[in-house]
């Protein structure tokens, strides 16, 4: 059954998020402003769909790894935001918070930290993209990031923070909705990376985990879920709560607990 709110609710203030794989999300505001986060280099091990010159207004780059900074695949002559000074681009204020990634991945020397956590607010929803964060946040960093409604967090480990630390970061920032990213899947074959299920397997209830569509149990159904679910998530801010209003969602997501949404990749 479709979400009744989808038909009733106005089309205004609706934020769209599409997941292209790894750390790459395409975020479209209600007035059509497009932000692309961390475009990746699709190579031998990354089989995700390439962006193919998806036009954008702003592309954010969190770190200098080729899985995060391949801006060539982004079209539409965007601004590249990769610094920590707050900057207004396309009517949206971008803030970067300097963090580090793991020692083994120190590839960039032009950034204040090796990794920049991106914070921006679109349609009244505060988004935070952790990039290739390699550690738990310090209190100072968590304060700089501030309130977060939707958090995009790397959960694969190995080249980013361990999955237990990722959970700790989620507790630190206390977002309403979590979008896990940067994990091992059939489209992204990095040795040693954890699958997304590691991130929520010890949660008391998996009912709050959505794979595009709501599923009560998560047991070896990743593939079929990915095929059923909508790759385009839509969110709306209602009375301080972020609500998932995608066509595929059977139920509203509310902010009582941390909610994890695993979006389907764009194939």
């Amino acid at each position, binding site marked *: 059954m479709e979400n009744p709110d989808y038909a009733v609710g106005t089309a205004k203030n609706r934020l769209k998020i599409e997941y292209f794989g790894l750390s790459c999300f395409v975020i479209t505001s209600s007035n059509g402003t497009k932000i692309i986060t961390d475009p990746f280099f699709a190579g031998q091990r990354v089989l995700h769909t390439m962006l193919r010159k998806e036009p954008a207004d702003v592309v954010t780059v969190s770190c200098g790894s080729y899985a995060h900074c391949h801006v060539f695949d982004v079209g539409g*002559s965007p601004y590249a935001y990769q610094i920590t000074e707050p900057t207004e681009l396309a009517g949206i204020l971008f803030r970067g918070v300097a963090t580090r990634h793991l020692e083994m991945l120190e590839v960039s*020397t032009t950034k204040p930290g090796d990794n920049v956590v991106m914070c921006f607010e679109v349609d009244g929803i505060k988004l935070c993209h952790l990039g290739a964060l390699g550690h738990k946040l310090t209190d100072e960093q968590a304060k700089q990031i501030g309130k977060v409604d939707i958090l995009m967090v790397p959960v694969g480990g190995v080249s980013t923070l361990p999955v237990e630390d990722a959970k700790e970061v989620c507790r630190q920032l206390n977002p309403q909705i979590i979008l896990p990213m940067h994990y091992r899947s059939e489209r992204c074959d990095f040795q040693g990376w954890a699958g997304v299920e590691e991130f929520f397997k010890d949660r008391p209830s998996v009912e709050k985990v959505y794979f595009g569509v709501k599923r009560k149990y998560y047991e070896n159904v990743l593939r079929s879920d990915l095929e059923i679910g909508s790759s385009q998530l839509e969110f709306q801010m209602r009375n301080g709560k972020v609500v998932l209003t995608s066509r595929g969602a059977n139920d509203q997501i509310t902010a009582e607990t941390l909610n994890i949404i695993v979006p389907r990749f764009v194939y």
Partner: protein
Amino acid sequence: MKFKWYYTASWRITTDTGVSIITDPYNHKYIPEGPPPPFGTDHPAVGEQADIVTITHGHFDHSYICGVKGVPRIYTGGAPLEYKGIRLSSVEGWHDNYGDCGRGVVSCVGIEADGLRIRHMGDYGQDRLTDEQLQKFGKVDILFTCWGDWTPALLDQLKPKVVFPMHHAVVDMYMRSLKGFKQLDVSEVEFSADTLPAEMKCLMLKQLREPTGA
């Protein structure tokens, strides 16, 4: 208008009004999981700010945005872009003669500012430009090109006023045979629409970013 050579295909073009363009920023460090580097990639990054960054193709030594500071506008080809009084356009060229089966497409980026028509060829490496491509290129005043077997035909077809060899270019017999060839010990030169030479000049500059070790 000033032209400064950092390394490989990376140049800084500064217009008379102070707008700066950095072309093809390179990846300066070897990444274990990344594509294999050519020799001598351990160069210091460009590390400077620019208003515009142009990228001709997606290879890592031409498209590393993290080598550039600030919040630049990126131009990677496609529809023409007008920004800060500069007109950017591109013509599709090819990395080699094998099209999509080879190393793929290269957006030859055109920059029009201060009355000069500049063309950055990236890793262009076709034997000859097709008539269709040649028509799209139009007139070229200043040309940045890598140096190889295809270069004589390219210069013959485009007939630029100034040529800057780049991208691991070495002074070879052909370069020496050019009438207007000059090897300079500087990394930056200046040209304007009035000071363009009547005969073609080929200027081999000195790379600004020297390698820091193997």
